[in-house]
């Protein structure tokens, strides 16, 4: 019986030694750990300053409190974890805190939208029309970072006082017949405070990206007969989508946890944001686990825009 392909004696597979990857540019061979090794400092950094503290937060959320001092007592062993605080805070999150959650989302969405409109216009102008003054514009954009956020907000507190300069100007110009108490729990003040505080963080990444857009692509759009507006809508805007998403993430995430803007510019329960609830729990004796649970809720919620951003970024890379 002739030997068929199936009946051929099996060759013994020889396990070859794993070859080291070859560097395409230089042709040199490097050990397998060589390139991943460059990620080591970053990995250690993340482990030390993000994952470990995050695990501590989880351990506090599922832990307990010291019976004497009522300070949070993290429980690192998952088999001892208790869901008591999680259940309690879930009850609040789906009940009494709902108004605050909705308010926070509304404030952040409004502030982010205003930030985007203003920041995009500024970044676009500097990138396209800055010319020789780009350096000056950049310096002006970075200038707010030289003054602490707290100091800038405190200066606004002075400006917005009933007898402050803002009211003086408004009444002088007869825009309002009498001074407005901007600091008396006015949602507009809080939203504008958020815009003012976070807008530099949006302008810079947008500028960085818009500045790198290849001019020839815009010229191609114009050459094909598109108007300046149509070129902007069909070419510039789609090209800058990754930057918009990145800057939205940069600005939105801290806004959700912000509490001091509201504390300084309002202080009214009418404008309480989620960050204020967190702050209250953090500062209260025996409320450490509750605060940690609220942090976890916030993180889970913020994962939604974060995952969307990651998905969009991955998609954009695939499309390139």
């Amino acid at each position, binding site marked *: 019986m002739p030997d068929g392909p199936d009946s051929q004696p099996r060759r013994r597979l020889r396990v070859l030694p794993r070859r080291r990857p070859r560097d395409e540019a230089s042709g040199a061979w490097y050990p397998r750990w060589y390139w991943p090794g460059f990620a080591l400092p970053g990995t250690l950094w993340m482990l030390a300053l993000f994952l470990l503290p995050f695990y501590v937060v989880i351990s506090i959320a599922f*832990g307990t409190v010291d*019976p*004497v001092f*009522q300070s949070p007592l993290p*429980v690192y062993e998952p088999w*001892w974890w208790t869901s008591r605080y999680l259940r309690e805070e879930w009850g609040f999150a789906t009940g009494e805190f709902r108004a605050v959650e909705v308010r926070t989302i509304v404030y952040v969405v409004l502030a982010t939208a205003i930030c985007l409109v203003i920041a995009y216009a500024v970044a676009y102008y500097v990138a396209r029309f800055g010319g020789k003054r780009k350096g000056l514009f950049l310096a002006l954009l970075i200038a707010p970072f030289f003054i602490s956020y707290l100091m800038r907000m405190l200066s606004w507190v002075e400006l917005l006082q009933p007898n402050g300069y803002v009211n003086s100007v408004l009444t002088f110009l007869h825009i309002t017949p009498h001074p407005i108490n901007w600091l008396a729990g006015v949602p507009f003040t809080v939203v504008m405070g958020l815009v003012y505080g976070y807008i530099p963080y949006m302008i810079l990444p947008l500028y960085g990206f818009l500045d790198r857009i290849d001019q020839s692509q815009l010229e191609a759009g114009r050459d094909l007969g598109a108007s300046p507006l149509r070129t902007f809508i069909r070419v510039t805007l789609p090209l800058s989508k990754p930057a918009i998403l990145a800057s939205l993430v940069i600005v939105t995430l801290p806004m959700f946890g912000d509490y001091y803007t509201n504390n300084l510019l309002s202080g009214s329960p009418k404008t*309480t944001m989620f960050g204020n609830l967190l702050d209250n729990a953090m500062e209260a004796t025996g409320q450490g686990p509750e605060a940690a649970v609220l942090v976890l809720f916030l993180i889970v919620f913020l994962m939604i825009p974060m995952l969307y951003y990651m998905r969009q970024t991955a998609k954009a890379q695939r499309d390139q």
Partner: protein
Amino acid sequence: MARHPKERPARQGTMTRREVLKRSAAASLALPSAAALLEACAKPGTTTTSSGAHASGPGVGRYWPAGSPYPLARQDTPVTWKLWREPIKSGLAPEKGATLQIYNWADYIWTKVVKQFCAAYNCSYQITTFNNMDEGLAKMRTGQLQFDVFFPTPDVLGKLVTGKLLQPLNHSYIPHLVSDVWETYQSPFYDQGWHYTVPYAVYTTGIGYRRDLIPDEQIRGMSNPYEILWDTKYKGKIGIYDDYREALSMGLLKNGITDLNTGNPKYISKAQQTLVSLINAVNVRTSINGAYLGIPKGTFDIHQAWSGDMVAAWQYTPTQNMKTWQTLGYWFPSNRQGAVFNDTITIPANAQNPVLAHHFLDWMMTYKNAMLNFTWNGYQPPQRKADPATLTTTNSAYGEPYVFPWMPDAVVFEKDFHVGYFEEELTPQVDQLWHNAWQAFNSA
């Protein structure tokens, strides 16, 4: 780096798991102990208290709620804290060339007074501050920071003594407490026999207001002056303290409930609803500096206020003259049945200069020094010679009366601590109710 709480020294009736494991390992060499090993596997945070916990507890008091590791002090149920170790010996010389480490609230002691002490005792000083009692306790607990004097509130005294974070006082170094300080503080209800504390400042919680907008007669003529906070005429310019105990206590007092340590859910709920109605009526704001900063600047017309804040508020008026100072007013019930409180000075267990610290306590109990400090921080010391009736007529080192005569309610009397209502430590369960009410108010 701070050690993990479970690694900290064992407290009364408790043992850390690591300690148990160590002991278990040692014992297993000679005699394996199943009980110790079982305890080593105990759930973190649980305590092993024997049936005789009260007898061997850190203090003696009649009000000892279930689950509390120590008795809670109330005006009618005082607590005597046991001496967990002997005080320092009498007659020791103060440490020379030392640096007195002071751990205090921010801006709560005049450095001039401290400098004078250091000049007298040939030492230097270092002031470290904390922003709230939790922060203060957290740093104290680490044991890494060695302070010589610490300024806690009486409501955390149980924690500090049970945690063995304070050292008992040797009274022989502090004669001025007996000679100069109110009789009430010779044996306060929260520390009978003043084993661990001396009083620092006394104050009441009332209402601060702008006298140019609200005449004294108006607020004093009201049947329930707390209701002025609900006056829609001042909408947007009314504030309460961003402090759950003070704010809710005001809600209780407005409703005629005088137990400011109540655990009754109905009362707490009522106080919460009262505060919520304040939002709807006048869009109330919460702040911690609204009384002494906001009222002088015109940010607030009315603000819940500690008497000390209003006494010192004149230093923050935009223009420094008598006319602007006269715009500041303070109301407290004329029958003195309102919220009262005091702060204390203690010596931490790990103080490096305990003798110097004892002398510092005595320095602060001395009439001259206590009144000098009062001049600057506005918080009255409980001094016998500082007759409250004369505080409004006697000039301080600043050349103005200690308390302006149009603010007589801001003067604190010794009797206030017998007829007033003290905010004291709550059990964790009751405290949770208060916190929930506060969070509900803030999210209303």
